[in-house]
């Protein structure tokens, strides 16, 4: 059995190994639920998350407000439901960007070797030489706070880690017979990379990418907490924690709810990542 078929089969069969054990299964369900809530938000709650009523401020138990209202009289449940969107959007997009950038750079570097490799990897070292948090803050505040800059910042900060893995994997594959065969057969380099090498490193890469998702979610929440994410009045968990901090003593739920939701999502992403890695890349686990 050639490496090519082996790897693809492995990926296909791996899916069946997912979600074994209660923790992993629960995590998959949680992540799916969060995605569902974010997508179906408007169908789940009727209140406008950005508009409040002056007659119910910071109250708990007002009729029609299951989780009470915030300091501007806005329905907390609606804000919790809608607040999932920016976090999920930013974490998924930023992870996708990091995956594309990191895999691309690593693939090229590992396959080409030599000077190209040196230049690409030094660039990646540079990004790693500065605490990621600061790097992202610099990128976002130099541009303009918002989803676009947040995704770019987090994507750039997380790409080098993925690039290192991709380079190592690609370098290993570059010497294999099937790659040599493809090259000798006259296939052009980009094609070799995309059609031959990429599928073979996809398994371990995917596992690492999903691990990155939880890191991206942590950053996304942290930065919107710092006011560098989506701007109010659009609800967003990170910012809700920041804004609710003022009411920590009087209405702690304004902090606890979004913080707990963020925590649950990040933890679930972590376990899902673990699970995927166990399934796709058995060598690296345990």
């Amino acid at each position, binding site marked *: 059995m050639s490496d090519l078929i082996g790897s693809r089969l492995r990926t296909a069969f791996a899916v069946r190994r997912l979600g074994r054990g209660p923790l992993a299964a629960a995590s998959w369900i949680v992540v799916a639920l969060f995605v569902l809530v974010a997508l179906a938000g408007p169908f789940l709650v009727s209140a406008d998350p950005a508009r409040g009523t002056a007659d119910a401020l910071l109250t708990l138990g007002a009729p029609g407000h299951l989780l009470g209202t915030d300091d501007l009289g806005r329905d907390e449940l609606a804000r919790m439901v809608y607040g999932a969107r920016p976090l999920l959007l930013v974490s998924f997009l930023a992870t996708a960007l990091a995956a594309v950038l990191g895999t691309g750079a690593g693939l090229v570097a590992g396959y080409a070797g030599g000077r190209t490799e040196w230049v690409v990897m030094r660039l990646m070292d540079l990004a790693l030489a500065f605490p990621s948090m600061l790097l992202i803050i610099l990128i976002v505040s130099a541009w303009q706070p918002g989803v676009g800059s947040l995704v770019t910042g987090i994507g750039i900060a997380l790409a080098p880690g993925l690039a290192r893995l991709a380079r190592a994997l690609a370098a290993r594959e570059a010497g294999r017979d099937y790659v040599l065969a493809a090259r000798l057969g006259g296939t052009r380099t980009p094609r070799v990379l995309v059609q031959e090498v990429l599928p073979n490193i996809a398994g371990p890469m995917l596992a690492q990418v999903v691990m990155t998702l939880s890191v991206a979610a942590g950053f996304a929440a942290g930065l919107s907490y710092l006011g560098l994410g989506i701007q109010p009045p659009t609800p967003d968990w990170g910012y809700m924690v920041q804004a609710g*901090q003022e*009411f920590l003593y*009087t209405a702690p739920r304004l902090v606890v709810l979004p913080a707990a939701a963020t925590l649950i999502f990040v933890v679930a992403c972590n376990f899902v990542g673990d699970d995927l890695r166990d399934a796709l890349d058995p060598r690296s686990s345990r």
Partner: protein
Amino acid sequence: MMEIGNHNVSRRTLLRGASILGMGAGLTGLLAACGIAAEDDKSGDSPKTGGTLTLAIDGTSAVNDPAYYTTLGDWMVVDCVCRGLTFISFETNEPQADLAESWTISDDQLTYTFKLRQGVTFHDGTTFTSADVLASLDRQFNDKNKTLLEGSSRPLKAMGENLAALTAPDDYTVVFKLKKADRTLLGRLSDIGGRIISKAALEKYGSDIGKNLVGTGPFTFSAATSGQSVTLEAFDKFRLGKPPIDRLVLQQVTDPSTIVSSLLSGDIGATQFTPYSALEQLKSDKSVTVYDTPKSFDAFMMMDVRRIPELDVRKAINLAIDRDSLISQAFFGAAVKPDGYTIPPNQDAYDATLADISTTNVEQAKALIKSAGATGRTVHLMAASDSWHPKAAQIIAQNLTDIGLKVETDSVDPATYFNRLLNPDDEYHDLMIWERNGYYPDADDMIGSLAKPSGVYGDYISGFTTLDGSADYADMLFEAKNITDATARKTRYSEIQRAWAEKYMTLSMLVCAANPVVSGADVENMNWRALGNHRCYMENASV
């Protein structure tokens, strides 16, 4: 000639009389708490002595220079280290004698002769004389002064431009000769900019004086670290006696929830930077004292007439503002409706008959918008992202949506905001939420600044200066500020305010609000009224 100095004698008599009536302790405490430059602060209970008082401040650049503004906290340090010729206690709004013992004003109001106090010692041991006054004030009046840092803002610059001559006939006399009369001179000399520095120290340190400030105030400069804190020590030769506390630390605490927590935990002794949202919680906690700080600053929304040219639309916007919601949701009760328009209730020219300028009438507003054909128009609203600003922006955005406008809001960090405010080409320059704090409680510092056509508010921010008839306001305001009779002055200011609001409406008053002062329960005799105006008089405070 009129004699204005020496209020102290009568106050002392009052205190003595009161203690005979058996109200001594309480009343002394009360008056001392107001921090009037009391001559006999040792009467009544002897205050607790010793200890360290820590004040939370907005920031410090470790530069404390009366000619160079960095942060509010750094200027609070100047307030503690240096004293001026006059002093505003915030108990009354009348300037009192401080380093000047008394003064006389010529009948044409153009010559002010100050008699200086003798035997006052600077922290460096030198004796206070008229030479120190000239050296210190020259830094305000003369931009070529060698001891100035590059780009010094010199808050008393305008006073210098109105000065024909400043002379010292002898060691204890200083004479101001003015070009045009200026009733506010005594008050402005009490401002941070008017604080007197030791001439010897100025010669020694040059433009580094801000890192080595030497004055005659109750506290001497000890150490400062940028971004962290400034440490001051009690000055045992302070002319009104050594302060009860040994050490005063002004510490930068920027996180609002940390301010609240450290007040509750006792790590912070007092601050005027308390987040509004925490006031209810703090009031119910026995470990801290929440003061009923005067509602002394203006919270307003400027309207750029170049962007919103129709007076009716601006009036409609003013009518749409739900001030009750602002008071309860953005200020948590630490504000009142702006019944005196731009003049807050603690000032002499406050006139509640102007309340109708700031009424709310959504139906009328809608009608005005409709008749102006502005329904559905998009207006841009911007606000800083700190303190009450973003919340006010959210409430106002809702108010304006309710009268048929489309609102786009942007709230940005304070430094960015400040720059954008001064840039008329900014995309969001239609409606701008801002505030004005007065270091010195006088109408000239409020309406006098806000309606001045050539000032930042009238020029950069609202474009008032581009409107017909705006130039007259410069003269009207000048004439009003010099009216000596307080009642006549108040009447005139009310006329100006009403006319300005009705003809132009470039400024919608939101509320008059307080900088809420909170201290630990063990902090006594602190001048909280002054602190609510970002002034720092801690000479009587004890912990």
